[in-house]
């Protein structure tokens, strides 16, 4: 294309703002010499470009389409300080073990920096609309995954963060030194309020700290929410009186509208519950509203990550769960389901470790072997308690403690309610198993290798545990993970 | 701390192997290297080590069930190495499995005794708790006992000490230290304490020759040296100093060297003209002059 203006001094080369279509990299979205500022938001995308699209152009396109560009030059750009608002793709690396000979198409990691001014303070909705709102359907890309994000302290500080946090939660429960225990009432659907409450009472009396509503228990024909709340709180209080412990039940306040949610949450508070729960599907705005409400009302806020696997599970496309975890910590939830490693749901150990560190550390350091690409300073934001739920049982207690540590809620739904001798026995089996393993670990026992013996020794005086071990001894879920780390620790790996 | 691989049977115990495993010899060698002279003390330390080793062997063979008392008393004048030996002893005790940690908490009466009613017990207990697992070294322990002052709380501290020495003998080893005669007076007034002390070690004063050796070692460590003249002067200094009051053995030598260094520095400054270079040899030498300036050579105390 030739120059189209007659203004003197204009070169024959095409001008930046002349009408027409330019490559993104020529529009300023690819800046390999750019040094990200401490105040920039940085996003790491995993790009699978279409054939004949070169990686820098693809990265520049992602930067462009997630900030200021459109597919053709627009003169109105010149009414803005467009250089500042433009996102800058500053680095592109090929992903190891992809491309020719690896059995998967060549992928690239693209690092893109965004100016702080692009984002509204304290708004996850805005942060996400900005970064993932536009770019994922973009044709020149075969697949795109938001792999990780670095949120600058300047932006972190505009968020409330977890309403309660791990430390205060433990101080309210008066429970220190061991993981917390929970269970989801089973069957998932169909119980009436009164029968539902019976499950809660038995489980809490038997030794669990929490029981929870399932994500789809909201208010259905078989059980209206008010009945559930009333019967559950009766169960919680009665169990507290017979054990002397603080107990709780996550009352699910998810509803069709925000107004309904506030009504349910207020009722839970009135009845004296210490915790409520919400599902991820209510949306980021609702989640932030609930977090604000929770802090104002001294309530622990549990988040079920319903629906996340639709976009977090495949390695080449979607949003990695660690990014969701970061957003949720900023938004202000206190609990979030984050994987079990050994249970029935997806979870590679290295990936899960990275996610747990994202939730629990005051400063999460970069660690490529855990797929953490950035140092993330949480600027004093409270810590989120990860919840491990799905297909775990007492016989795995030593593995769970080793993989997941102490600040975690271990939820044994089937593992409690499916116990051959009843729910109370199931809860006791889990609690005894947990305490025995923690005691042994503190004494210096190698629980990874000798954990099963510790459990069997405890089973000799605890009949419910014996029955649990006998029933589920050999149950494991060994499938290949779909989401794994790209960087594996080896002697020769240089990452 | 248990030495491993020993046969606990009628075949007996390999004492040398036990000793080697416990690596006690390293500590004894360290003691030899660190402290000049003190031959009788080093001998006693060896004897006590052997005794404890045998006690361990007897325990392993099931002959002995009670751990022997390990509380000790070190007597001697100041500057004779009592604190150093206490630290090495703690090392040895830990390596022989008699105590859990080789730490030494060193205190005097003021750390144990309070100023008013009710102050002593918590103070003493805090010190004891801090020292548990290791060694408690009480210097000039006889000051705990002041019978002439009826409002003195030292007795309370002594009683608490006794209780712990008895009940927690596997948790704490107490080493008392001080002048020989005064310790004897203390013990005769407090037979309960005396009965719990298993080992007494007396630290003799250093001989003049030993003190000269100590002076050489100290100087060397500080990167100074004597020439023949100053060495002879040092020898004369020592002989005079010994006879004067408040002689504290190695400590006095240290003080003398410090004063000599001060005089040396001033001498060098006075002699150095502008633009002149002072050589390294001069900076390290302690001249006889630097010692002769001492009032020890002036004959009378001031």
């Amino acid at each position, binding site marked *: 294309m030739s120059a189209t203006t007659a203004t003197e001094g204009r070169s024959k080369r095409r001008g930046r703002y002349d009408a027409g279509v330019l490559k993104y990299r020529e529009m300023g979205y690819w800046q390999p010499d750019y040094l990200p500022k401490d105040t920039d938001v940085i996003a790491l995308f995993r790009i699978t470009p279409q054939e004949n699209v070169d990686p820098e152009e693809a990265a520049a396109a992602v930067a462009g389409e997630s900030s200021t560009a459109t597919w053709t030059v627009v003169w109105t750009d010149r009414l803005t300080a467009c250089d500042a608002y433009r996102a800058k793709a500053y680095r592109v690396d090929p992903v190891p073990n992809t491309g020719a000979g690896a059995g998967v198409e060549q992928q690239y990691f693209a690092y893109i920096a965004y100016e702080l001014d692009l984002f509204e303070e304290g708004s996850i909705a805005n942060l996400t609309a900005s970064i993932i709102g536009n770019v994922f359907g973009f044709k020149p890309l075969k697949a795109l995954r938001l792999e990780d994000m670095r949120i600058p302290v300047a932006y972190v500080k505009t968020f409330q963060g977890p309403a309660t946090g791990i430390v205060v939660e433990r101080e309210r429960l008066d429970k220190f*030194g061991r993981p917390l225990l929970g269970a989801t009432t089973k069957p998932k659907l169909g119980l009436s309020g009164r029968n539902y409450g019976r499950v809660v009472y038995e489980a809490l009396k038997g030794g669990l700290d929490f029981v929870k509503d399932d994500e789809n228990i909201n208010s259905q024909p078989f059980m209206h929410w008010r009945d559930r709340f009333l019967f559950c709180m009766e169960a919680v209080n*009665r169990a507290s009186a017979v054990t002397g*412990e603080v107990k709780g039940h996550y009352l699910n306040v998810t509803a069709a509208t925000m107004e309904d949610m506030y009504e349910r949450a207020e009722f839970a508070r009135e*009845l004296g519950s210490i915790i409520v729960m919400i599902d991820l599907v209510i949306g980021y705005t609702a989640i932030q509203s609930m977090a604000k409400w929770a802090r104002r009302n001294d309530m622990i806020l549990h988040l079920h990550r319903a629906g996340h696997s639709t976009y977090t599970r495949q390695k080449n496309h979607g949003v990695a769960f660690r990014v969701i975890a970061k957003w949720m910590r900023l938004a202000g939830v206190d609990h979030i389901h984050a994987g079990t490693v050994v249970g029935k749901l997806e979870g590679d150990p290295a990936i899960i470790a990275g996610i747990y560190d994202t939730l629990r550390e005051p400063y999460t350091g970069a660690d490529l072997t855990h797929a953490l690409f950035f140092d993330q300073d949480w600027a004093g934001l409270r810590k989120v308690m990860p919840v491990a739920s799905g297909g775990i049982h007492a016989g795995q207690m030593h593995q769970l403690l080793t993989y997941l540590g102490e600040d975690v809620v271990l939820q044994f739904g089937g593992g409690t309610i499916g116990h051959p001798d009843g729910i109370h026995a199931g809860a006791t089996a889990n609690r005894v198993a947990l*305490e025995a393993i923690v*005691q042994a670990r503190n004494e210096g026992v190698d629980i990874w290798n000798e954990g099963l013996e510790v459990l069997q020794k405890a089973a000799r005086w605890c009949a419910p545990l014996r029955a649990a071990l006998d029933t589920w001894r050999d149950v494991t879920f060994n499938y290949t993970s779909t989401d794994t780390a790209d960087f594996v620790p080896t002697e020769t790996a240089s990452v | 701390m248990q030495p491993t691989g020993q046969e606990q049977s009628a075949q007996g115990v390999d004492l040398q192997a036990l000793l080697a495993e416990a690596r006690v010899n390293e500590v004894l060698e360290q003691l030899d290297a660190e402290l000049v002279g003190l031959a009788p003390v080093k001998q006693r330390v060896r004897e006590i080590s052997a005794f404890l080793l045998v006690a361990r062997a007897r325990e392993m063979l099931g002959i002995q069930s009670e751990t022997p008392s390990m509380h000790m008393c070190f007597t001697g004048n100041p500057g004779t190495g009592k604190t150093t030996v206490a630290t090495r002893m703690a090392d040895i005790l830990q390596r022989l499995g008699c105590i859990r*940690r080789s730490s030494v908490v060193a205190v005097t009466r003021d750390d144990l005794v309070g100023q008013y009613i009710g102050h002593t017990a918590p103070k003493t207990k805090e010190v004891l*708790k801090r020292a*548990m697992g290791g060694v408690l070294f009480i210097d000039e322990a006889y000051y705990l006992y002041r019978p002439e002052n009826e409002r003195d709380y030292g007795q309370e501290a002594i009683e608490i000490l006794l209780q712990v020495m008895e009940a927690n003998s596997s948790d704490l080893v107490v080493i008392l230290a001080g002048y020989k005669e005064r310790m004897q007076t203390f013990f005769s007034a407090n037979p309960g304490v005396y009965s719990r002390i298993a080992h007494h070690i007396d630290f003799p004063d250093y001989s003049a020759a030993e003190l000269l050796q100590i002076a050489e070692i100290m100087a060397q460590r500080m990167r100074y040296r004597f020439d023949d003249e100053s060495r002879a002067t040092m020898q004369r200094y020592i002989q005079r100093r010994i006879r004067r009051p408040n002689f504290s053995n190695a400590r006095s030598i240290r003080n003398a060297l410090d004063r000599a260094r001060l005089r040396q520095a001033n001498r060098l400054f006075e002699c150095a003209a502008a633009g002149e270079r002072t050589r390294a040899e001069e900076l390290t030498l302690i001249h006889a002059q630097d010692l002769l300036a001492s009032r020890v050579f002036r004959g009378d105390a001031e």
Partner: protein
Amino acid sequence: MRITQGAFSFLPDLSDEQIRAQIDYALRQGWALAVEFTEDPHPRNTYWEMWGMPMFDVQDAAAVLYEVNACRRAYPGRYIRLNAFDATRGFETVRLSFIVQRPEQEPHFELTRSEGPGRRVRYSMRTIGAGRG
């Protein structure tokens, strides 16, 4: 009833050896041990009586057990627990807490329900039999 507060209440009461092992664990982590006692184990009774100060400078389990035993001798009929405190940034809280003595006769809790409008119930718990052990 047997009150199940603390990290190890579902296990048989810990022996002194087992308590010592837990103290050693806490000391290895750099936590400070503190002894507390009470006659009222109500779950909302946060502030048990302190037996002396938290032992910030103690390095050896024997010293902690010394205080536990002193507390046991002074209050044979009370609940006694050990708290291990972690002062590092990001925690600044108790990391481990477990009961080391229970009264012979443990109290129980009476649940009172005050009925409100609709089917609302207000719950409160009262300790019955505290200090009897």
